[in-house]
């Protein structure tokens, strides 16, 4: 199995594994391996979904540099 490059990649790999397993013509030992991989991928995906924290940031230019500030209540 390839390295997981991104969430999307993980979802795609997970789907492939599910399809392979559902076909059922893979030897048991390999099936177990695939199952473990699938579970790991789904854990990864679930974790990834909750990874980021909600933030609203205002970007401004200051002396030619990009600065981040908290976004006020202007648009909320």
């Amino acid at each position: 199995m390839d390295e997981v490059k991104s969430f999307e990649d993980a979802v795609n790999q997970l789907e492939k594994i599910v399809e392979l397993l559902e076909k059922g013509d893979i030897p048991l030992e390999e099936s177990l391996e695939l199952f473990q991989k699938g579970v790991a991928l789904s854990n990864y995906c679930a974790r990834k979904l909750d990874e980021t924290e909600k933030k609203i940031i205002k970007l401004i230019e200051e002396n030619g540099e990009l600065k981040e500030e908290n976004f006020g209540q202007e648009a909320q």
Partner: protein
Amino acid sequence: MQQKLTVSQLTKYIKQLFSYDNLLSNVCVTGEISNFKLHSSGHMYFTLKDEHSVIKCVMFKTYNRRLRFKPEDGLKVIIRGYVSIYEAGGSYQLYPEYMEPDGLGDLYLAFEQLKQKLEREGLFSAEYKKRIPFLPARIGVITSPTGAVIRDIMNVLFRRFPNVVLKIFPVMVQGEGAGKQISRALDMINKARAADVIILARGGGSLEELWPFNEEILARSIFKSEIPVISAVGHETDFSISDFVADLRAPTPSAAAELVVPEKDALKRHIMDARIRLKRALAGKIQREKQFLAQLSKSPSLRHPLDKINQLRIDLEQLNKRIENAMERKLESAASRFSVAFGKMDALNPLNVLSRGYSIARSSGKKIIKSVSDVKKDDMIEITITDGSLMCSVTDVMPGT
């Protein structure tokens, strides 16, 4: 004699006349551009003509800088300006201060011209379109910080995916300098790698109001951007140059928010589904393997593994017996043949003949006497009988008759 004037004095005089004339100092003319030349000084030189006449035109850099479209030969235009004398050339010329395409609006023409130009350069080519990341963690939005647009985007965004980082770069979205500002914001975010995807957003408006998104400077920044750009300008029916250059066009700002993140709940369900399917598939596999095993264990060879051996043993015994029998028969027949031969030999054994009362006569030389001629009178002969020998003297020899 009249006062003599120099050419320059005369020319100046005419020029003055022109400048005193109300119409010539502020005139509106329509005509078609020909012999258009943009000089390296930045001034534009061309002639304006209709079916019967031509007039030379010079549009100075100061004025033509404000043009949003590019004048070209064959273009019908409306010009406002003044007519004056070009003293060094001895000719009168029209000096346009303002020019717009006749019929079409100048913005419309400018839009079409820029669109064609950028398209020829390949800025709209599909091969340059970057993929919008599937799950961007940081979403940059360049838009006005106030108003419905940013509110709509936030509503849709956080409804679909409650935990993302939204980075808003506040800009003017209309008016002089807006295009430059938006382009600068895009460059800055790129330079700082501050977002995974950037949305350019503006609500609906007239072509004039949407104009910043049709400016070349912004088009170039979008094309240059290494972060994927979504253009969400105006309503669904409005198209801007930024829409064509961007990696993805969203019909509206809210649609951009829909396109930029997946629905978290749906994704979660999808992943849970995949888990359930994984478990089910594996359980099914194990179940099938179990059944297969059960079937195997029912097969005769596995249930009574000794049967086969026993069977072989029986076979072996039978084979042994058959070999023994065969040997016996062979021996018997050999024995019987032997006893026949033995019988024959027995019959031929001279000792046996003697036992039946016959005797053997031998000469003194131990030669068996077979004829009367072998013996003479008074010879000593030995007669062997079954239980001994007799030494005898021949008293007479009588040949048979």
